[in-house]
């Protein structure tokens, strides 16, 4: 697989070809109007572009992210009713209270289900195909994450997995993944 082009490279090449074609059509027609390759329908190609990169508050759950650096996987528990929330949240909707404590989650659990993402979103298209699974940890909460395995046939529903804190490359940030332990 590694000698083949990534999905991102293939997409970028196809898009570059298309936009080169748009530029040549624009030169000859004076407007960015191109024919649909299949039907010949006239298409206007946007001359404006937008980049979406969000800035999101994690203020009330910052401890979760700080703990990853200490190799700890923690979440919030309501002091009132004892409910454990994952993903962590700073308010308990049943108690209508915000008196939460941070607790360490069990690092072992059972695989509930999994899939391979073969056709990837553009922002994930630089990765090889990856497996995403959902596991139920021993304390009862479920966690969605990548599974450290490339072949889905080596996995099965009900197998034991553990949570590892890992650095996601090439972005270089801490996250967590599921690791089969059978």
């Amino acid at each position: 697989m590694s000698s083949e082009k990534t999905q991102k490279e293939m997409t970028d090449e196809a898009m570059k070809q298309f936009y080169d074609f748009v530029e040549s059509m624009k030169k000859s027609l004076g407007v960015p109007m191109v024919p649909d390759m299949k039907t010949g329908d006239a298409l206007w190609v946007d001359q404006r572009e937008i980049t979406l990169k969000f800035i999101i508050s994690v203020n009330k759950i910052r401890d979760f992210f700080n703990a990853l650096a200490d190799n700890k996987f923690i979440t919030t528990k309501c002091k009132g009713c004892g409910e454990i929330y994952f993903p962590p949240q700073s308010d308990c909707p049943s108690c209508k209270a915000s008196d939460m404590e941070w607790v360490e989650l069990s690092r072992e659990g059972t695989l509930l289900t999994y899939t391979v993402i073969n056709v990837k979103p553009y922002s994930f298209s630089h990765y090889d195909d990856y497996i995403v699974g959902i596991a139920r940890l021993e304390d009862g909460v479920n966690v969605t994450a990548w599974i450290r395995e490339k072949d889905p046939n080596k996995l099965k529903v009900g197998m034991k997995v553990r949570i590892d804190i890992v650095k996601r490359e090439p972005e270089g940030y801490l996250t967590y993944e599921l690791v089969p332990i059978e």
Partner: protein
Amino acid sequence: MGRKVAIVGVGQSKFGSRNDVNMAELTWESIKEALNDAGVDQKDIDYFVTSNAGGWSSEPLPAVIIAEYAGLNPKGTAKVEAACASGSAAVKLAHDMVASGQADIAMAVGVEKMNESPTPTIVEFIGRAGNYFWEFQNFGLTFPGYYALYATAYMDKYGATEEDLALVAVKNHYYGARNPKAQFRKEINVEKIMGSRYIAWPLKLFDCSPITDGSATVILAAEELAKKLTDTPVWIAGIGAASGTSNLSKRKGFTSLEAAVAAANQAYKVAKIDPEAPIKYFDVAEVHDCFTIAEILAYEDLGFAKRGEAVEWVRNQETYIGGKIPVNLSGGLKAKGHPIGATGEAMIGDLAKQLRQEVEKERQAPIKKGMALAHNIGGTGHYAYVTILSLDKV
């Protein structure tokens, strides 16, 4: 409950890759058809609800684009979003306005122009339709991926195979081939489906509904007016709506969409349908087959089949015409196409025509009981709407 409400007009554009029209032109196709079907003019519409998911298309305010182009100004409008169930949400809101007396005639207009963006952008946007921060940001799930999680769990629990899933697509393409407004009008076989590439293992290309441009419109009127407008009003007998957790990890299990069960039970209660034996009431149903596995889950979530039994139904062709209950005679999302915001109106509109016995002969269900059901799911069970239609006023 309020006033009784009936569908008096429906319209649908041809679904597919519609680069021959812009969003307004595409929407006008279904609005015009629905106005003509109802025999009303724009001035008779008191309010219209627009359903659209958007993101991939250029116009951020589709409702006003439509209002101007279709001659609907100065009628009030708003856009609603319930992901792939936006259309059913629009029908519910239009229904509620008429039922409550806020409007005598209200219209639900759905449109999606997905092909304004390249496929990778669409995959990106749909993948984000769940919990963006916890499930997409780090793990890059896709819409097929979310449903594949359900497929893996279902196949493991009940012994269903990839070939079983393929049979759903075979059926829906069979009927899509008989619907002139469907995106795919070709029958396919199990071999072809099994030979298609994986999109999100175990789901393959032909397990997935396509990227679609399309619009659909439903016009609703209050009882007295409905009877004047048409000899065959199709009554809204019940609507159920429910939501599911944004994080898939917070679901109790992965072999059923809890929101769909809740929505069905609500709708059954309003329409006085025995939830233990719902199929005896219906001539035909449209269910949300964005992926083949989704149709299998729907049979069980609606209580049509018992848990684990839907796969047997598929093997025995129980949802073809002549089986226990025909499902997705429009071709379903799989073959008719799935223009996200227009899918709900298209399902409900096609069922109204089924009950009126006006669809193409080869895909017309025998109408004996006079009731039909639409099951429309937004996201991966994030939103669920079940709408029950009836020729008799319930």
